[in-house]
């Protein structure tokens, strides 16, 4: 009979929300928290969160961690761990069934396993589209690159987490780095775009240098400024 494992333990890289504290005044924290959460209460429901105390480590005696944890829970958040606290805080955390994470400034030796995992980041597959993107259509590559093998019409919109490549005329709107990747770029064979944007920095057609219209171009951020260059 073949051996089938019942379970396995594996290192995994997760994205977690971190609450960075810059002040240890309980009242100020409560107030600031209420303000933040009231803006999008639904967004925070059941969200796992790490409490980071590194920034207040010199002056955390007054911080009431157990009250903070309770407060977060009343808002619907799920505190899962504490990072960068002192011995007292770590003890409170353990008593409240929270994990203790290593301080990122001084990684402990047992972190090597995790760092190994981090060394092989998952490379998301590019999204490749063969057909023209027509006016009114929208194509999104939520992870990785977006590659279009034909033209993108005026009034169409293409978006990508990373780079955008258009092997044809780009007439619509192209937004690269939509999750904030400021290294993302837009490449196209003929530039007639309605709008170009990288990591939220954009330019509309009217602002493009005239000598670049219709040319093969590369668009990227340089010191937070959008740059369009002939290829």
């Amino acid at each position, binding site marked *: 009979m073949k051996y089938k494992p019942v379970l396995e333990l594996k290192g995994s890289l997760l994205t977690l929300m971190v609450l960075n504290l810059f002040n240890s005044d309980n009242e100020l924290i409560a107030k600031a928290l209420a303000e933040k959460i009231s803006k999008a209460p639904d967004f925070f429901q059941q969200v796992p969160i790490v409490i980071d105390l590194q920034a207040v480590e010199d002056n955390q005696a007054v911080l009431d961690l157990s009250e903070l944890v309770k407060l977060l829970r009343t808002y619907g958040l799920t505190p899962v761990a504490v990072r960068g606290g002192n011995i007292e805080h770590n003890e409170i955390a353990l008593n409240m069934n929270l994990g203790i994470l290593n301080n990122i400034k001084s990684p402990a030796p047992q972190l090597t396993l995790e760092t190994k995992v981090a060394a092989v980041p998952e490379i998301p597959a590019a999204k490749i589209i063969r*057909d*023209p*993107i*027509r*006016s*009114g*259509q929208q194509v999104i590559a939520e992870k990785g690159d977006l590659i279009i093998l*034909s*033209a993108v*019409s*005026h*009034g*169409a919109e293409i978006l990508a987490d990373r780079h955008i490549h258009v092997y044809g*005329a780009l*007439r619509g709107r192209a937004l690269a780095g939509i999750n904030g990747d400021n290294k993302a770029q837009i490449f196209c064979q003929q530039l007639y775009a309605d709008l170009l944007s990288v990591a939220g920095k954009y330019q509309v057609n009217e602002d493009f240098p005239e000598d670049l219209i219709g040319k093969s171009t590369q668009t990227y951020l340089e010191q937070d400024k959008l740059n369009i260059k002939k290829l």
Partner: protein
Amino acid sequence: MSKIIVITSGKGGVGKTTTSAAFATGLALRGNKTVVIDFDVGLRNLDLVMGCERRVVYDFINVINGEANLNQALIKDKRVENLFILPASQTRNKDALTLKGVARILEELKKDFDYIICDSPAGIEHGAIMAMYFADEALIVTNPEVSSVRDSDRIIGMLSSKTRRAMQKMPAIKEHLLITRYEEKRVNKGEMLSIKDVQEILAISLLGVIPESLEILKASNSGIPVILNKETDAGQAYLDIVARFLGEEPPQRKKKGFFSRLFGI
């Protein structure tokens, strides 16, 4: 095998109804049993262009609602053998068109006709979607100006996403570009897009070009599809389009106009 062909554009007033009448008449002239359906519910002008407005008793919506049967609603053309018209209702709105109802009628027509031509209303809403939904092929009617081309582009996108062939992952709708109201003089003055410009933006195969022509207005007003007037530029252009659609090389034209040069004939 019968074929459903939608005449569509997005924009209004570009020549869909004119083309539907001419194209259907042309196919019938070539011996194909053809029906042309007016999907422009609420406006109803196909029957005017076809010159049968005074013979309308029942319409498309009556048939969908089961208030009349197809044979009662179909109007037989008086001039051309094999040609029938299914008029739209003037008193209902486009919501009266249901997918189920349209499907049932098209299925019934398919048993009897070689070609079913659907004259689409303008816009990208319900009525236009109903007209294109079951199509096997599409004639995209475009004027050589920016807004018309943009709307056609949008419609082409919908043909590949909002139709039965798209949704059921069947072979895609065959698309043909038809540029109408073309005036070479205005292209040369830079007031209109050239054929090449339009083709480049829309990137679908060109079936033909219809010149701007006063004859078309005359034809519509007298209720005689322009294709029956073989002496006119526009009539000839439509005849050529039908021939090309049927897979033939169109005949040599005496006058070396822009379209003869365009197609190298």
